[in-house]
């Protein structure tokens, strides 16, 4: 049986490889320049394509067979029992020491590694917070926000411009960034509240583009494409630092941000508000019929996610000391979404893992860096098809029932 289906898969894969190679032939092989009147034939690409797509198709069919045999795993209406690893990881005796170890390592990091490495990790930490913020909107409340980066831009420009014009410091602007993020979240939330999931996605996408285009074109306000430079690094009671020290300082700020984000989103997840978000994600009609004000829940989810991004925008501007609209394209939003999707929608440890994987892997595999977005795109498709719950499945809290009061009743 197994051998038979393997042969069948081989045949299917060969057909798929031929088809995909034929499909990609013009774009992969031929490159024309109609001005110079040159044509480049790159036949080697076709060979790679044949081999690559055959391997890909074989893996695809193998995974597809497994998925269909598992049946339950892809059926939206059945929650599979968690794997033994997940149960093991969920045990406080296991995860508490692991977390402590991780925290210790994170605290010591700037002293163990170079400034260059620390800088990379700061970016990763910023994306952890962004991922956790988007996780509230997309993962918990199920509102597909494709313009998330706009809120990040709002925070960054808030600091850059207030610093440039009024010399306001980092700490003064940090709360402003968060509040402005929340404000824009609600501003965007209002018009899109009534929209269904897919409309919402496209409107948020449009909104993100509007913000970027305005920043790019409104020279008088945002200095156009050239952006704002010479932004102050954060101070600390008037002490000024060397660049290295400032990096370490920002590193700890970002780390603190991550801890706060974990704390806040963890608390929210298992609260009255968080449960309402989940219900909203699962079934909007039933959610409202059970007495939840969908409008309010949606606005809150938007505002909460946006607040995280607003805060991080300020940190980002302080870290790079230079920002321009090019840092806030749709690709950033897509990357943050990929983090949430890959990690596991609604799962806090999943999103953290996702952020580290997607931010650090391309950084340390420079040879692949140009394939980064290609792989992100592929990841989003493959995760949705084969592992919709992401790397780490979100788990629900087991509530402790107070037996005494129950028995009395």
């Amino acid at each position, binding site marked *: 049986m197994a051998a038979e289906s393997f042969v069948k898969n081989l045949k299917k894969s060969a057909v798929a490889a031929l088809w995909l190679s034929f499909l990609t032939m013009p774009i992969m092989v031929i490159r024309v320049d109609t001005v110079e009147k040159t044509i480049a034939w790159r036949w080697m690409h076709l060979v790679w394509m044949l081999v690559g797509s055959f391997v890909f198709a074989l893996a695809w069919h193998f995974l597809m067979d497994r998925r269909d045999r598992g049946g339950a795993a892809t059926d*939206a*209406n*059945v*929650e599979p029992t968690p794997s033994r690893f997940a149960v093991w990881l969920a045990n406080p005796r296991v995860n508490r020491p692991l977390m402590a170890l991780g925290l210790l390592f994170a605290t010591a990091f700037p002293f163990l590694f170079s400034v260059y490495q620390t800088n990379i990790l700061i970016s990763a930490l910023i994306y952890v917070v962004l991922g956790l913020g988007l996780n509230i909107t997309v993962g918990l409340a199920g509102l597909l926000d494709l313009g998330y980066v706009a809120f990040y831009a709002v925070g960054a420009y808030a600091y850059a411009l207030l610093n440039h014009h009024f010399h306001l410091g980092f700490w003064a602007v940090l709360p402003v960034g968060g509040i402005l993020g929340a404000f824009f979240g609600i501003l965007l939330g209002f018009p899109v509240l009534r929209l269904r999931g897919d409309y919402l996605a496209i409107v948020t996408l449009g909104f993100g583009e509007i913000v970027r285009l305005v920043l790019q074109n409104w020279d008088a306000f945002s200095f156009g494409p050239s952006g704002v430079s010479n932004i102050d690094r954060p101070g600390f009671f008037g002490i000024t630092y060397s660049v290295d020290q400032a990096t370490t300082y920002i590193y700890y700020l970002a780390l603190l941000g991550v801890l706060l984000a974990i704390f*806040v989103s963890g*608390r*929210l997840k298992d*609260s*009255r*508000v*968080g*449960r*309402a978000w*989940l*219900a909203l994600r*699962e*079934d909007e*009609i*039933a*959610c*409202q*019929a*059970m*007495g*939840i*004000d*969908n409008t309010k829940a949606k606005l*809150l989810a938007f505002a*909460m996610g946006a607040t995280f991004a607003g805060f991080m925008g300020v940190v980002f501007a302080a870290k790079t000391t230079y920002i321009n609209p090019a840092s806030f394209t749709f690709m950033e939003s897509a990357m943050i979404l990929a983090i949430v999707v890959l990690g596991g929608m609604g799962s806090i440890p999943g999103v953290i893992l996702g952020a580290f994987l997607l931010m650090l892997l391309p950084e340390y595999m420079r040879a692949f860096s140009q394939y980064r977005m290609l792989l992100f795109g592929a990841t989003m498709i493959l995760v949705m098809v084969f592992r919709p719950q992401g790397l780490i499945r*979100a788990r*629900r809290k*087991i*509530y*402790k*029932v*107070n037996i005494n*009061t*129950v028995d009395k*009743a």
Partner: protein
Amino acid sequence: MSETRRDAVLSVRNMSMNFGGLRALSEVDFEVRKGEVVALIGPNGAGKTTFFNCITGIYAPTEGEVLATARDGKTRRINGMRTNLVCELGMARTFQNIRLFASMTALENVMIGRHCRTREGLFGAIFRGPGTRREEQEVVDKSYRLLQKVGLENVANEYASNLPYGAQRRLEIARALATEPFLLLLDEPAAGMNPQETLELKEMVIQIRHEFDVSVLLIEHDMKMVMSLSDRIYVMEYGRVIATGTPAEVSADPEVIRAYLGEESDA
């Protein structure tokens, strides 16, 4: 048009619902009195679920009036009121095609029902002070007790989607009860249940009415259950109420036998 009786908790007058050119409900008069179990029966497509949707604010009726008298004794006009406010007022429903929150546990599903009776906000959730903790614990305990009432306490921490069909139907009832309704609306609660489960469900509805002091309005196809459970029955066909009365009166009505029972007997 009959005068609304003083003890009516829901009274619908002359309600019609049009979808474009299609008249799904036509001049419906309807009443549920305090403590009653009322059944709404009729062939498929007669407009029963549309009726539910109209009185719970999912649709706004084109004409007519829907009046509800909540526990505070005040009568309000609730046409086109937002669904969540209808629920908050005290009319909670279940769904014909079960609509549970699949990736939440059974207990959490019931806890959602407590949402409109609790107040904890964003900051309460983040700082989790003593007030919040007390409220949360109350929600958990009350929800658990409701699970006990419908016999699901052993599966409290199972995901709702993993429960068997009959259990899912009962979970929906527990979730609706958690909102502290004065009127419980059940849309085909016995659909897909075997005779034994149906019997248990009937006992449960009787007990719930008694214990929670609610009126019950149910749509149901199981005639045995309807006849033995309900105080009064409304029969609907093509969006109109064609008969109403006690089970005995309705089952003797020739119009009803023609329209409904006749068809149903060969099912």
